[in-house]
């Protein structure tokens, strides 16, 4: 898979600074650093501040991670504690460690 040219655009929807949200962001950052170094953008959207954005990405659960690019769009909900699932969801093969 030609991954080098692609940039992962990730959006993390949270609602305030809840434990789950904080954990999710930490986990996400960790995975991205490990597997997608310099190939990702993380945008954190706090729905408490921008509730109107919830409809656009069909957000139900909090926290939700949305991968817009590369296609296909995937959503990962939860605190992202399961690394394997997150990586599958983001379509990242664990690079050789």
């Amino acid at each position, binding site marked *: 898979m030609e991954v080098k040219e692609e940039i992962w655009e990730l959006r993390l929807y949270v609602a305030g600074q809840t434990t*789950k949200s904080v954990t999710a962001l930490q986990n996400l950052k960790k995975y991205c650093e490990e597997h997608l170094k310099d190939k990702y953008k993380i945008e954190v959207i706090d729905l408490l501040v921008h509730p109107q954005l919830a409809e656009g990405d069909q957000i139900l659960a909090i926290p939700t991670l949305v991968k817009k690019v590369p296609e296909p769009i995937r959503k990962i*909900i939860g605190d*992202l504690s399961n690394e394997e699932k997150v990586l599958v969801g983001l379509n990242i093969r664990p690079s050789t460690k």
Partner: protein
Amino acid sequence: MSIEQQKKEDPGLINKILHKTPTGITGLDEITGGGLPSGRPTLICGAAGSGKTLFSMEFIVRGALEFNEPGVFMAFEEKSEELTVNVASLGFDLDKLQKDKLVKLDHVHIERSEIEETGEYDLDGLFIRLGYAIDSIGAKRVVLDTIENLFSGLSNQLILRAELRRLFQWLKEKGVTAIITGEKGEGALTRQGLEEYVSDCVILLDHRVCNQISTRLLRIVKYRGSVHGTNEYPFLIDEEGISVLPVTALKLENNVSAERISSGIPSLDKMLEGKGFYRGSSILVSGTAGTGKTSIAAYFAHATCLRKERCVYFAFEESPPQIIRNMQSIGINLQEHIDDGLLQFHASRPTLNGLEMHLVSIHKVVNKFRPRTIILDPITNLITVGSVSEVKAMLIRLIDFLQTQQITVMFTALTLNNIVNEQTDEGVSSLVDAWLRVRDIEFNGERNRGMYVMKSRGMKHSNQVREFVISDEGLNLVSVYLGPEGVLTGSAREAQQLQEETGLILRTHAVSRKDLEIERKRKVLEAKIASLHEEFESLQDELNKSYVEEELKKEIIEKNREKLTKIRHHENNTATDNSSSE
């Protein structure tokens, strides 16, 4: 009543009584005594296609249009555009309502394949979305249709259930009146046991097919803190939305009218104290096939229209043009009344919909057209779509409804020599105010119609059997001939009448001959008397004559004797005298 009283006694209690939010759905607010519980969630459950979405949509739209309560419709199944198109057929313009900020549609799309679950999460996103939607238009009403779809999209049931509980709690705190729809589950009201969370008001919608005829039914399973109707109420979905029909009015206190209206047949009116039926009463015309029930009904309709009152004719057997043509043959022109807008025909096959649907459609027609008289011809055909008791129940409700509106109704019913139909006759007859029976009288090789008034509440009706004659000039009732040979009708009656007429002529003839004879005899006798009289007179003359002769003779003799004596005297002394006198 007791609540009303309490309200007066304790003004503080008013605040404690459950507030209700009217739905605006025809009939539902009557059953629930005012609507759904305000500020609480209500569960509407039912199988697929039972009308849940439409029901909740109508709640939102009516709220926005009629009660100025904006609403949020959160759809988990259909897209906003689909919903807009679907309800446009009911005349709801969702796009405009959305533009006016009265309604907000929000489609929640859950695609399992797109979602990966890892670890803990909650549904705050949904809450925020809903909260935002509510706040953006100041919504008072919320619909979640069908929230169970969450269960198919998300796999962590524990979280879901906990979150749902929180959601309903949150809705209550928001103070919005909510409808949550749920698919009917096996042995439970909903597949996911939503009734567990929504416990204030549960309404069950059902779509039942019986004898290939479908009926939609609504039942309030539970309504905490309020009295409500407990029956299954039929409802109808048509181009004006949902109408629920209260099965029976709870009271029997209709106004009654002492006004009388003509049946259209003067001789029939004569049997009913000469005035006809009471206004607002129910009349049953029953009889075997071909006895002229439809003609009686058509005459009644005709009479109604001639009074410039409106009439609706529900035909379950013949098409309107057929009825109009047939009635022209007996001298009434119904087409005129249709053109004048006084008469409406509603023809439908009984099997078109269930009994309840017929009832609902009658209700709708009556409410729209406001007739003074309606005709159902014939009700017996309805049995094809329901059992006897169902038909009876329907008619009770119909009569009930019509009486509150002071509408006179005429049913026709076919009697066959069939047990089921005989039951109908009797079943219905106890409900109606007047019952006319038309029956065949087979006699002397022909069939004639006899008619009598079986009952007519509140008047001294005639107890006579009349012969019912249908001719080119119309309908008429003729007194049957009661003779030594029994009741005679038709040509036998006419023959008897002719015979009587001949007899009369013969008798008068005989009498006049006898008179003549007497006259003649009198003349003969008179003649005789006259001749006798003559005889007597001649006899008398005769007698008189001899008498006079005798007198004359006597006189003459007297004279002669005097002469003689004189002569003799003269002879003695005066002979000269004698000679000188000579």
